[in-house]
């Protein structure tokens, strides 16, 4: 029950493998390595067969202007993501507070907002915002759409995290005479944060990937730029679609890995904090 026992239970959950299990794992390891290598070779061979590694298709990446466009696209993606991440976490916190309110109308209204924007397909939301309000400024249609959708999801994550704190914690705080805001801020939220963190970060990863929807409303983010590059035919070898995918795709993957690494780091820091407390106090 206590958040501080997690490191201990992590190893308890699994039996340490015995000699036979270890041998089995080694066989599985080798087999999967062979499988993955085969798959990669198949992909490479197919693409090569279709002439996708023809240097003429890749020449385009040598131009400074093209490189600059990719960097600009990346920056645009990061700008939309940064704004959407900050706004959606703020909105999520506000909506969660509203959903946990003692006042029925507030609770009701916030729940309605959360359910509506969670159910609404993000693409429709972004396109609607674009045509209705932001035809000249697609970035804000994208940011607002991402904020409303992801803010609602974050609200659900925060609300369920707070509700998952054992009931006695809140009761004990009320019994001391704390007010609701004090109970939230000093007892419930601090205990909820640790369990919420992984889900919040995965939702941020989703937010990051969904910035690519901006290309539909002509926001010049990474995917838009990629599509523009790919639709200019090369002299001899046709459109460089696959090469663009092979360049843009890994950039998204790298960004997501960075976010995940950040999450790990935050989590590890929290855990180390807990362990430090444990060891100095014991």
């Amino acid at each position, binding site marked *: *029950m*206590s*958040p*501080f*026992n997690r490191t201990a239970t992590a190893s308890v959950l699994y039996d340490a493998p015995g000699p036979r299990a270890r041998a089995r794992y080694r066989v599985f390891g080798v087999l999967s390595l062979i499988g993955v290598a085969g798959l990669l070779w198949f992909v490479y061979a197919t693409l090569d067969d279709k002439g996708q590694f023809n240097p003429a298709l890749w020449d385009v990446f040598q131009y400074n202007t093209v490189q600059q466009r990719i960097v600009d696209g990346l920056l645009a993606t990061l700008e939309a993501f940064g704004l959407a991440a900050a706004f959606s976490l703020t909105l999520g916190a506000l909506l969660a507070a509203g959903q946990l309110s003692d006042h029925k109308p507030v609770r009701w209204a916030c729940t309605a907002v959360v359910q509506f924007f969670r159910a609404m397909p993000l693409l429709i939301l972004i396109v609607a915002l674009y045509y209705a309000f932001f035809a000249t400024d697609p970035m804000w249609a994208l940011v607002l759409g991402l904020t409303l959708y992801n803010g609602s999801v974050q609200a659900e994550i925060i609300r369920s995290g707070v509700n998952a704190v*054992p009931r*006695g*914690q809140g*009761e*004990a*705080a*009320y*019994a*001391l*005479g*704390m*007010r609701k805001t*004090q109970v939230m801020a*000093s*007892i419930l939220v*601090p*205990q909820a944060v640790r369990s919420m963190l992984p889900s919040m970060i995965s939702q941020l990863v989703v937010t990051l990937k969904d910035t690519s929807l901006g290309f539909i409303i002509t926001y010049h983010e990474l995917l838009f730029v990629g599509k523009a590059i790919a639709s200019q035919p090369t002299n001899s070898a046709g459109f460089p679609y696959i090469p663009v995918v092979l360049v843009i795709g890994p950039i998204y993957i790298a960004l997501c890995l960075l976010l995940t690494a950040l999450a790990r780091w935050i989590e590890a820091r929290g855990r180390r904090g807990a362990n430090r*407390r*444990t060891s*100095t*106090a*014991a």
Partner: protein
Amino acid sequence: MTESPVEDSISAAAPLVVLSKVNKHYGALHVLQDIDLEIRQGEVVVLIGPSGSGKSTLCRTINRLETIDSGRITIDGHPLPAEGRELARLRTEVGMVFQNFNLFAHKTVLENVVMGQVKVRKVIRSHAEKTARELLDRVGVGAQADKYPAQLSGGQQQRVAIARALAMKPKVMLFDEPTSALDPEMVNEVLEVMRQLAADGMTMVVVTHEMGFARSAANRVLFMADGRIVEQNTPDAFFTAPRSDRAKDFLSKILHH
């Protein structure tokens, strides 16, 4: 029957907690039925009764962790406020100790006892810490001040919980089965703290099945069944000669094993 001087002074004192015609339902279940109860300054009242009879519910209505449907509860002459700042202020005057301790898991023992004083009573931190250390010493866990609750035994945690409640300087303390979640060897260390508290004149409402504690520390035993107070008496009279069949039946069950 001759009353001791202590009991004389208690019966002369003004009622501190008064419940009149208190009713509460959980859906169709009538958990509290026309409860009338007066608890005097310095009195120690033990509530016993079968599981589900409404003991916890009664206890929790006194600091409004449970609301009531009808009736009236007053503490030191003031009716229990329904909400807001007044309710919070009243709760500081009613200490509560839970079966599962409910210490704040993310705070040290010291911080558990300091927090309420600083956040609610607005005591300066250094004073609050001094008070906290004194209280922790008084309940015998002063050496554990910098540990986290999960590192303490159940008995130690419950004594910290008592210290945490005392730090608010309450007028009355509620105990809901404070020793039921403890291993047998830890029960006495908690009961000893409670006995001391009773001897110091604290007004206490204690839900417990510890007959030894009831006999040695209580002024009055209330027997509850099906949402009613069926019988009340001094501990000696109640345990040796229960009047109602429900009480006789209940006592025979808990005493014969």
